[in-house]
């Protein structure tokens, strides 16, 4: 192999290195809020196939918050959900908004804003199912599907334990398939997610469990200045008609 070819490759790679890392220090006077999210959780954040842009309830909310907090622009950085907190801790993003539930464990490593959304767990069955649920006890003895590691999964385990047969799946999509295939009879998943596919698939929501979970915006631990700005902005927005408009846009009325 010729030295020239290797040399050429080396130049190519150096060029790529310079090109891809040089753009970050913009030097412009704009105040940019760098937002971390995981665009695989509609309707909170997802990629719009028509425009190719990341959009959703969370995205529009953070843009409103940023504007109120005095930022000129928002830069959305999409990544795997599990990478979000490390990204916050290492300063790769300023805030994280990703339908992230406020939990004690997470509070140990990041600081959360005031809650901006209350999430419930929906109990979903097949449309032709005769199962009715008027209380948690009605779930006893059933085969329940959940998404691994979610608050729904934890809730069922804590409250019903081995009074149900629990099947865990890596994603809510897989759990939905299991319900449709008959491998499980009941699904327990986040309400917004459930509402997403009750129109398209033959399933219905028969009960809503109030698990008292709340979503929050996360900032790096100790970043009180930013947190205060965000909280103030959130309070203003949530008390304004803009909030109702946003909720109606993504969740109907």
């Amino acid at each position, binding site marked *: 192999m010729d030295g020239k070819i290797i040399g050429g490759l080396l130049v190519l*790679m150096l060029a*790529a290195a310079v090109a891809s890392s040089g753009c970050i220090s913009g030097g412009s006077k704009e105040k940019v809020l760098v937002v971390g999210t995981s665009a695989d959780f509609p*309707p909170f954040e997802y*990629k719009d*196939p028509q425009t190719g842009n990341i959009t959703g309830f969370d995205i529009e909310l953070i843009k409103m918050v940023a504007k109120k907090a005095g930022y000129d622009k928002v830069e959305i950085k999409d*990544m795997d959900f599990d990478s979000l907190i490390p990204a916050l801790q290492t300063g790769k993003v300023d805030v994280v908004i990703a339908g992230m539930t406020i939990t004690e464990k997470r509070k140990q490593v990041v600081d959360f804003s005031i809650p901006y959304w209350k999430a419930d767990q929906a109990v979903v069955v097949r449309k032709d199912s005769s199962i009715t649920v008027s209380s948690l006890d009605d779930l006893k003895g059933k085969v329940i599907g959940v998404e691994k590691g979610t608050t729904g999964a934890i809730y069922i385990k804590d409250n019903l334990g081995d009074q149900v047969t629990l099947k865990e799946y890596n994603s809510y999509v897989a759990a939905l398939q299991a319900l449709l295939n008959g491998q499980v009879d009941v699904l327990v998943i986040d309400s917004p997610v459930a509402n997403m596919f009750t*129109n398209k698939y033959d399933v219905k929501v028969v009960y809503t469990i109030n698990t008292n979970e709340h979503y929050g915006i996360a900032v790096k631990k100790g970043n009180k200045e930013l947190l205060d700005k965000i909280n103030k902005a959130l309070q203003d927005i949530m008390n304004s008609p803009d909030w109702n408009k946003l909720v109606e846009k*993504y969740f109907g009325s």
Partner: protein
Amino acid sequence: MITSTSVPLDIALRMLLNGAKTTIVLSVFSILLGLLIGLPVALMETYGGKTLRRVAMVYEGTLRGIPLLAIYFVIFYSMPMLIGLGLSPFLAAVVGLGIRSSAYQSQIFRSGIQAVDEGQIEAALSLGMSQWQIIRHIVLPQALRMSIPAWMNEYVIVLKDTSIALALGIVELTRQATYLVSITAEPFRYYGLAALFYLAMVLPLTYLANWMGKRYGIKGTGGAMDVRL
């Protein structure tokens, strides 16, 4: 109200195609970085003195022993904290996959080097050639040719492993498919399409590898394959 929707096929294909382009670019940069580092490491390990050999062995042993995702997290998250060197996601992805591949490539080249017949080396030495001349003119030309099939296989592996870069936020083929799946709740369709895209990229490479192996391979070194049945 946003409900799960269907995505028109042409738009979905466009998204997946963009992802495939990123996959290919990532894989090319990574395999080349792997080559740039892997070949010298192979030489160090075969011809180096005790220290050089030990360094090479530790390098490739460590990188072959750590999962790629862990390598990515160290480069992308730990490195900035420890030594203050931050890389963009793309660069981190290329460097991570590149050095991982360099570890495997060093082993590929090493076996190619070791497959060169000793008799040739002895003959070259008796002619008064220096070690470097022997490596450059006798060993490497043959070793590299014999390494082609295994190297092409490594490229296929690198191409598939680019999907792990989605953890860093790189929007490659698998991530595009995940976007589509999360909007439509149709995993079979979109992960299936993504699989077809991967196949479309890998199958031609496999044929190319076989063809190159036959065209550039050295007759007499193919073992049982040299016997035309």
